[in-house]
């Protein structure tokens, strides 16, 4: 047992020595700094995971692969979207590959697990990838875990007022039953309920639900709209069955609900999709030079990429850019427990592709949310048109810290405004 282990270690060290010898030439020319980069390259989020890597690569490419006077090398790692695997890969990068900076992970529960691990490694700086769980920075944050993007609840702020503005006073909720939709629903309801809206009932369905007939049967007649916080194929399944059951209420969507699969929906109610409101930290149709430059660069760099960068590419891009900019600011100085580097991270403030990027005292992003509505383009295709931007959204969703604490983090029953 141990002999085989030792032999493997021996073989590995020989391989390592050979690789090191091969790298000597370039290593002599300039110092290399390793940064761990974790995304889901396997499992249900493998495709978004690949696009995440593109986002991070793009941020490095803009700097010609250099930051703080050093050549940057990404140690790419994979997870299968389970927290166990995310922590295992992170631990390998930190303890085995000895990276001083770690970027990732992709999904919410992974983020919480990595944050908990970060507490045991105070010498390493952890920067979020695209994880959007509130608890990663709220309640019990790790002093060395930074998240430059906003999270699931922040992405929905402003949509509540927008829905009220459209005359939707009573809505019925259909959402998947896990952490991310909880946050999204809280972001919507925090302002919606405060301004007098009612969420008459909530239907939490398991991820990947195919049959919505019981949910549709539960929907009361006197609602004004349906709030649908489902992703990808779940949203299309719901839409089809709702139409077949004769449903005719307008829809409000979550941040990942109204994507290309929904926009390309071919059913009879296709026209009724027009005007469907949703919200998120970015939108394909943002009309600013920064966004257009980002899209152009993405398209030029990745021929095999998507037609336009996905949410994940965008989030990994801003987090990686923040990490590299701060390295530049301190000229690559990571000494003294990375004190100077972390101060530089805290001071981060740049205009990203979709608005300013900065963080609060809990090291969570304060940013812009885009409210969009489905609109018909000149060629007849549907797209999400930006109708409103809500700047400077904090993690307390515009409430004071005490009020937010009183409400607690989003869950199946929080918040609640039935009557």
């Amino acid at each position, binding site marked *: 047992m141990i002999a085989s282990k030792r032999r493997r270690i021996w073989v590995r060290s020989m391989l390592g020595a050979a690789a090191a010898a091969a790298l000597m030439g370039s290593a002599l020319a300039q110092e290399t700094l390793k940064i761990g980069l974790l995304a889901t390259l396997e499992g249900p989020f493998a495709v978004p995971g690949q696009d995440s890597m593109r986002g991070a690569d793009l941020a490095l490419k803009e700097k010609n692969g250099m930051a703080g006077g050093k050549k940057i090398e990404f140690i790419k790692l994979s997870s299968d979207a389970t927290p166990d695997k995310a922590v295992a890969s992170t631990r390998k990068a930190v303890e085995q590959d000895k990276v001083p900076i770690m970027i990732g992970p992709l999904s919410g*529960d992974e983020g919480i697990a990595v944050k908990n691990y970060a507490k045991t490694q105070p010498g390493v700086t952890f920067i979020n990838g695209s994880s959007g769980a509130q608890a990663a920075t709220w309640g019990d944050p790790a002093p060395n875990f930074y998240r430059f993007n906003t999270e699931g609840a922040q992405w929905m702020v402003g949509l509540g007022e927008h829905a009220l503005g459209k005359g939707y006073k009573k809505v019925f909720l259909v959402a998947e039953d896990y952490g991310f939709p909880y946050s999204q629903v809280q972001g919507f309801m925090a302002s919606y309920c405060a301004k007098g809206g009612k969420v008459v009932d909530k239907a939490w369905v398991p991820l990947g639900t195919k049959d919505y007939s019981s949910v549709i049967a539960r929907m009361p007649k006197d609602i004004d709209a349906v709030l649908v916080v489902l992703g990808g194929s779940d949203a299309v399944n719901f839409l089809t069955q709702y139409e077949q059951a004769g449903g005719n209420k307008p829809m409000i969507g979550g941040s990942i609900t109204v994507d290309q699969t929904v926009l390309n929906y071919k059913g009879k109610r296709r026209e009724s999709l027009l005007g469907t409101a949703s919200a998120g930290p970015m939108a394909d149709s943002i009309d600013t030079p920064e966004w257009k430059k980002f899209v152009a660069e993405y398209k030029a760099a990745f021929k095999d990429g998507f037609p336009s960068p996905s949410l994940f590419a965008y989030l990994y891009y801003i987090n990686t850019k923040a990490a590299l900019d701060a390295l530049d600011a301190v000229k690559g100085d990571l000494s003294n427990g990375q004190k100077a580097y972390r101060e530089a991270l805290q001071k981060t403030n740049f205009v990203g592709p979709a608005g300013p990027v900065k963080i609060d005292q809990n090291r969570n992003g304060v940013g812009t949310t885009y409210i969009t509505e489905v609109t018909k383009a000149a060629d007849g295709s549907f797209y999400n048109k930006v109708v409103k931007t809500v700047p400077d959204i904090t993690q307390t969703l515009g409430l004071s810290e005490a009020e937010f604490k009183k409400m607690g983090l989003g869950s199946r029953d929080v918040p609640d405004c039935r009557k």
Partner: protein
Amino acid sequence: MSAAHWRRAMNGQTVRSPRPAAVPRPAVVEVAADPYAHSDAPRWLKSLWSRLSARHVLVLLGVLVYPAVASPFFTYQIGAQSLALGLIALSLTLLGGYGGMVSLAQMSVAGMAGYLVAILGTSTATAISLAWPWWLAVAFAIVLAVVFATLIGWLSVRTEGIYTIMITLAIGVAFFYLAQQNYTLFNGHQGFNQVFAPAVAGVEFRQPVPFYYLTLACALAGYGFVKLLVRAPFGVALQGIRDNPRRMRALGYHVTAHRVATYAAAGLLAAVGGVLITWYNNRISPGSMGIGVMINILVIAVLGGMKHPIGAFIGAIVFVLLQNFAIDLLGTDFRERFNLVIGGVFLLIVLFSPDGLLGLWAKLRSRFGPRSPIANQRRQP
């Protein structure tokens, strides 16, 4: 002569026949009138002593000094994880290799134990966790998980071969979805966070080195348990049932009860492994015992070889090393294809040696090693 007499007579012969050669004073064994003239422990120790060989001592020394030479990463993520996973795979080796019942639900038993530790002990889900002292939570978790394993066994022993695999797969998947969708007890998709190994007498078992020794102690105990069990009358009868259940039934053995009891014994190993792996991850959620993980346990057992209890641990080491380092073997452009390496290695091993790495070792030894047919015959599975 009653069936019980038969059984005793049979077992007596099978177990004792190899012993006279090993025990220094064979005359003592022959005295059937008073087999308990000596106290049990010394005899047990003596037989253990006679079985120990140089490689046992070497391996034992190796695993004991391992944390001293390895980094915390290698101690914790490679060493401790391999031992904990190996313990769960060992339960499958006992069931599959010695009992002929391949169960995919061993990870579910482990998951049940892990969940119970979280539910009865402490975690971040304070509304559910009962915050019992750790030893009480662990004791209840293991006992209840063994009951769960017994129930699985009771249900699945009515089937054979591929049907056992199917029914245990069904049970595992059902338990996965139960945990995923139940919020009052299993806390749904999120599961339980910050389920830490306890601190006992000033030793923080969360730390890599103490945790390694904890898993090592459990793994050695599990290994010894299986080694003893398969040589005991129970284990010999079990192997008889594996090879010819009909004949064993004709001899008066209660085949079903024997099999269910094996599920319970294997459940004990899986439960201990489950508690360890939960402490290792500091958390448990449905994903920790999903279909992929259930199959991983089978992969580990097959990879190592099911003919000897050590196979489970060898398989686990190879599996964990591949999981961790396959991604480094590929160039930067192909990094996301690292699963190809893992799959390829598994395929190669199974292709060239149906008995896993142990079979490969035996093949190499029979080809290049010294030939001693008599010693080989003694070495039965």
